[in-house]
């Protein structure tokens, strides 16, 4: 029997091998995957140029404020000029123009620059990582706790920082800690509108007739923890929204605290006692929310939801019930220790016995071409091509993250466009690798006779590369 474990280690639990990887790990593919879990700090992404979200947000919020003030001043000046009381001062429109880009809104530039720095770092990490399984875990959890660029505004500059701060440090930590980091993070609070949610009976609510927004509360239970069948009601959603009132982000005009940081605004917090999933919360301010989040993280429905989702993501739709049960049991037994749960997944026989079914999502497909074929995309190219195939980086279509069914990424036109990208890659790398040798080097025993034959019979090396890129062995994992 052929040994496909190497292939599974590099693809099901990775981002595709680089030349030489397959040979290097062939002696112990399972050990190769497990070893990547040894040092959780390898999931961190840090560099001097990557700034904390609080710093990015403060800068953007203050720049927005300055722009608003300046526009107001300009409008007033224009009005008084019309009355003839002030000489005009052409060329002085207030906000410092950006070097070389004088006509562009400086806030837009700040946002774009912050996003591009993070995008570049994320792209390089995926391409170069020696712990690609950790990157897969980061992608999984990032999509599980999705935020999205399409929300616009000040969410945009911090989607990358959100992943660095709330997701990466916790992918092998406790689920409760990741959940807590996520719900405290300005990106999530803004993305799901909790930053403005106000208790109607709170001092601020009474004064300004503001009220609840239940967006975060609902998705927190439906998507992040219990699952849609996890046993909550509309009342639970409303009560969790009440419990989370006051969880917000410090604005540019606030005197106490640094703009862009999380804060608990007690004057927006709904007073009273609220029943959530049969337990009463109330009277303890922010601690009620923290307790509610901790309780949700520990709920048996959460264990089942996460177990099923992990198994479906890494193995296949409708994963074996026995495996889901084991993962859920480990989740409960270890109080949501994700390292233990992940170990259980990679040690399972199901993970290594199920044939590859899941079509590789666009971003990982492109990354696997960079790793395997020696082509280099620029970060913007990687982003544009991934978006064209349906997966704009950090911009999932909804809070549910990316579609994850086995065939979700098999839209006909998108499959055809992968061929165009294959052609592009084959042209860019030229005839340097012999496609037959490369196929064997990347795939080893997992290369099917049909694919091997097709590559053998290719009319030219370039076509051989295209066929290899488009082989089921590369397109599915």
């Amino acid at each position, binding site marked *: 029997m052929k040994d496909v474990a190497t292939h599974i280690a590099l693809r099901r639990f990775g981002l595709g091998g680089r030349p030489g990887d397959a040979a290097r790990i062939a002696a112990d593919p399972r050990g190769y995957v497990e070893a990547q879990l040894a040092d959780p700090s390898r999931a961190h992404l840090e560099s001097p140029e990557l700034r904390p979200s609080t710093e990015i947000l403060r800068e953007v919020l203050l720049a927005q404020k300055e722009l608003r003030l300046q526009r107001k001043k300009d409008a007033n000046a224009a009005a008084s000029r019309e009355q003839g009381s002030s000489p005009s001062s052409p060329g002085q429109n207030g906000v410092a123009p950006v070097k070389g880009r004088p006509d562009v809104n400086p806030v837009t530039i700040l946002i774009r620059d912050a996003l591009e720095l993070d995008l570049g770092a994320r792209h390089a990490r995926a391409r170069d990582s020696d712990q690609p399984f950790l990157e897969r875990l980061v992608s999984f959890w990032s999509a599980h706790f999705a935020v999205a660029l399409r929300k616009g505004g000040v969410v945009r500059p911090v989607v990358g920082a959100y992943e660095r701060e709330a997701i990466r440090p916790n992918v092998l930590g406790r689920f409760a800690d990741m959940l807590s980091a996520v719900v405290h993070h300005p990106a999530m609070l803004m993305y799901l509108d909790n930053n403005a949610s106000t208790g*109607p009976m709170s001092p601020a609510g009474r004064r300004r007739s503001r009220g609840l927004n239940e967006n975060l509360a609902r998705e927190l239970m439906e998507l992040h923890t219990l699952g849609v069948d996890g046993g909550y009601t509309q009342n639970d959603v409303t009560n969790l929204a009440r419990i989370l009132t006051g969880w917000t982000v410090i604005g540019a005009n606030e005197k106490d605290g640094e703009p862009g940081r999380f804060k608990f605004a007690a004057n927006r917090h709904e007073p009273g006692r609220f029943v959530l999933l049969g337990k009463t919360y109330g009277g303890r301010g922010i601690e009620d929310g923290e307790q509610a989040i901790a309780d949700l993280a520990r709920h048996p429905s959460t264990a089942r939801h996460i177990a099923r989702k992990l198994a479906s993501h890494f193995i296949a739709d409708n994963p074996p019930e026995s495996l889901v049960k084991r993962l859920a049991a480990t989740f409960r037994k270890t109080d949501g220790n994700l390292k233990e749960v992940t170990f259980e997944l990679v040690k399972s026989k199901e993970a290594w016995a199920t044939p590859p079914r899941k079509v590789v999502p666009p971003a990982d497909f492109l990354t696997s071409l960079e790793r395997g074929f020696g082509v280099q995309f620029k970060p913007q190219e990687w982003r544009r091509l991934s978006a064209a195939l349906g997966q704009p980086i950090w911009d999932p279509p*909804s809070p549910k993250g990316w579609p994850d069914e086995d065939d979700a990424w098999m839209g006909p036109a998108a*499959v055809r466009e992968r061929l*165009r990208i294959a052609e592009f890659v084959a042209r860019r790398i030229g005839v340097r690798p012999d496609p037959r040798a490369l196929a064997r080097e990347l795939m080893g025993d997992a290369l099917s006779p049909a694919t091997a034959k097709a590559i053998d019979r290719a009319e030219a090396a370039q076509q051989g590369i295209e066929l290899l890129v488009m082989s089921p062995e590369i397109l599915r994992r």
Partner: protein
Amino acid sequence: MVASLKRPSRTGDAMTNSLSRRHFLQAGTASLAMWGLMPRHASASTRDPRLLIVILRGALDGLSLAAPVGDPAYADLRGSLALKKPGDGPGAGLPLDFLFVLNPGMPFLHALYEKRQALIVHATASPYRERSHFDGQDMLESGLPSQGKITDGWLNRALAGMTHEGAVSREGLGIGAIVPLVMRGSAPVMSWIPKTIRLPLRESTIARLTDLYAATDPGLAKAFKEGIAIERIAGTGGGAIVGKLQPDDPRRRFRPFIEAAEAAARLMSSPSGPRIGALAYDGWDTHANEGAAGGQLSTRLQGLDLAIKSFVDGMGPAWSETAVVIITEFGRTVRVNGTAGTDHGTATTAILIGGKVNGGRVIADWPGLHEKALYEGRDLAPTTDLRAMLKGVLADHLDVPRRVLDDIVFPASAAARPMTGLFA
């Protein structure tokens, strides 16, 4: 009987409208009982009908699309989000009938309505009664009567069940990298996305991959074949389908909307192109700062309006044989939430436009907005099963037989009788 199927008077008051609607349903029952005995369209073989389904993901606020300004409870409940009656100055909606106004972001849809090529069904919902977007979309698109294992969408099953011979191409069309669930299934579906790179595909490579997939991977074989097929339809080559737009062109803000609509029109109007298509637009989940006239939702509706215009213009003469249905997973709360938006609700609107639509009317068995009328005390109550409208379109526009509609397209839906009279 024929007379009673005529649309309710556009000048009648709300009560007359809803009475007419009930009457209309009863009349529908009688005619449907005879349906099996009636001859099919005599001209069936010469017709070439087209149908585009547009899914608005995120739950469109139907009360802001077609606002019931004539309902006495509306203005108070909707507060800052309320549209005004025509003539009440800035922020006024466009007139529909005694009860409803159209969001002012949609002047083109309004013009179609005036031409009686558009109608709106209000207070409608799929059978889904919870408030998850994702389950709601799954039920909207699968057409199943309850949540369960989903394998395909109702439009694909309708395509498979169409009895038309020859006139309608058996291939469906899905716009986008991910084909909307409503269009997925066993019937073949082409899909369209813009070309990623300006490179011609080579026939020899296509042939070799076709052989490889045929031998190894039936799923990829099907997808690849369909992906290649669409590129062979004339007029879809080249890069961006939307030409260069002037800086002040309002379509610039909604390029993806417009591009999808233009691609659909180009393909569906092509002699050899697909006839049944689906596309989806995201971004209707207005939890915060929804706005009234000129606000966030209104702006997004403006994008939808421009997309509709692009599609109608693009269809050219084929518009007379085309229908478009615009649906969403559910509606939004009647009351404004604490952040000037609305949360997940229940009933909402559906739009039908088309060259031969019997339009210029809002079809609603209006439940009212007073406290006791609200669903679970918070949402617009559903009084019309959305499946009845969809089945009406499939029956009258595409000749899908009643039995197929009741059992296969929308399983176990016999009680939701197809609306009649949707087309002139």
